[in-house]
């Protein structure tokens, strides 16, 4: 996979290059700001671009650059990195695109295996959401018993959390050691209990529906 990086922290940028090379990927560009990355992506063949959210141009150069890249080169996958697990950044990321895009924490993705897995999923067209953030979204706010989330069983909450991470049915089944059929049954139950539209055949539409619902439930209670 051909990868381009924009990260203004030199030490972390060098670490990313080493991790990518260890994972067998080719780093075709490595810069410290969004404008330089856009120049690389415009002129070079890139499969996935990795962007720090907080980099020049300030304040959130990663987000503005990702939007420019998606508009100019929609086939390029985008992985946005941050030190903050913010639903604010998540929603901004999803406004840029709902396919071939990811948002992860820097320290969590700083490993060969997890970085390779994240890039593979993005290149395959998936949305990849930081598990820490997905977990927080799924947590029942203030343990409220009147929250629709309180109606879900523990296993259904696990399925919801993995859906919010952008996992496919097969990946959820593998994670929970159950069959895909069982996962489908849990998903149907979750959607019914939360009042979400049942027809979510497109994977990215399902992830968006789940994240939008969870985000709204956090705000409105």
């Amino acid at each position: 996979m051909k990868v381009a990086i924009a990260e203004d922290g030199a030490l972390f940028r060098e670490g990313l290059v080493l991790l990518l090379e260890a994972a067998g990927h080719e780093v075709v560009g490595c810069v410290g700001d969004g404008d330089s990355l856009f120049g690389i992506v415009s002129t070079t063949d890139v499969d996935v671009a990795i962007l720090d959210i907080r980099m020049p141009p300030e304040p959130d150069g990663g987000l503005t650059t990702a939007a420019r890249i998606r508009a100019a080169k929609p086939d390029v996958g985008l992985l946005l990195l941050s030190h903050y697990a913010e639903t604010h950044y998540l929603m901004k990321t999803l406004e840029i695109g709902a396919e071939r895009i990811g948002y992860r924490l820097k320290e969590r993705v700083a490993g060969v295996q997890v970085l390779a897995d994240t890039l593979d999923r993005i290149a395959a067209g998936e949305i990849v959401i930081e598990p820490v953030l997905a977990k927080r979204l799924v947590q029942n706010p203030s343990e409220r018993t009147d929250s629709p989330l309180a109606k879900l069983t523990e296993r259904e909450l696990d399925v919801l959390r993995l859906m919010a991470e952008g996992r496919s049915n097969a990946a959820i089944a593998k994670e929970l050691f159950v069959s895909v059929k069982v996962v489908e049954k849990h998903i149907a139950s979750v959607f019914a209990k939360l009042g979400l539209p049942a027809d979510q055949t497109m994977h990215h539409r399902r992830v968006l529906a789940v994240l939008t619902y969870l985000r709204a439930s956090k705000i409105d209670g």
Partner: protein
Amino acid sequence: MPGYALVFSAREGRLPRLLRVPTSETTTFRYELERRLHDEVAVGMSAIAAQLDLVAVASADPDLDDKIGSVRATLCRVVEHVRDVGKSVFPPVLGGTDFSAALTAIADHRDVKLQLDLPSYELHAQARARVGLLVCDHLNTLSPGTVVRVRVRGRRLVRVRITENPDHVEHKGRARVARP
């Protein structure tokens, strides 16, 4: 001209409590402090996490792998603490232009239910930062699940009114922030 700000808050049956909105200088200091925590501490620790993983990958010793895995997990927890401190010093979302989304995100972290009533016009960056810090500092004192209404009005002088649990009128606040 340096701005000044006052917050009057009162509980039922008590005299108003005086709180202060951060000055422009304090706001700048807190912003720079958070940037240093982010750029120098957190990013540096993430780089160390990456280096540790590379050592583990290069090693053929499963025991060493386990030890490195344990150290990386500890490192991630420490980064989490640094992140929490950074967010309290200056929430990074306040640096953006979407003030409503920023305040909502701050409330989100505290598990506080926020009802926002913002002006239709955009506040200038300094006012956004100062009012944002005022609201953030106040939300940090509240229990999870609290419902808070924040009303912001004014152009030259920005007035902020914070009401806790509006249905029960348990707590009210009002602030005035002079434009710098």
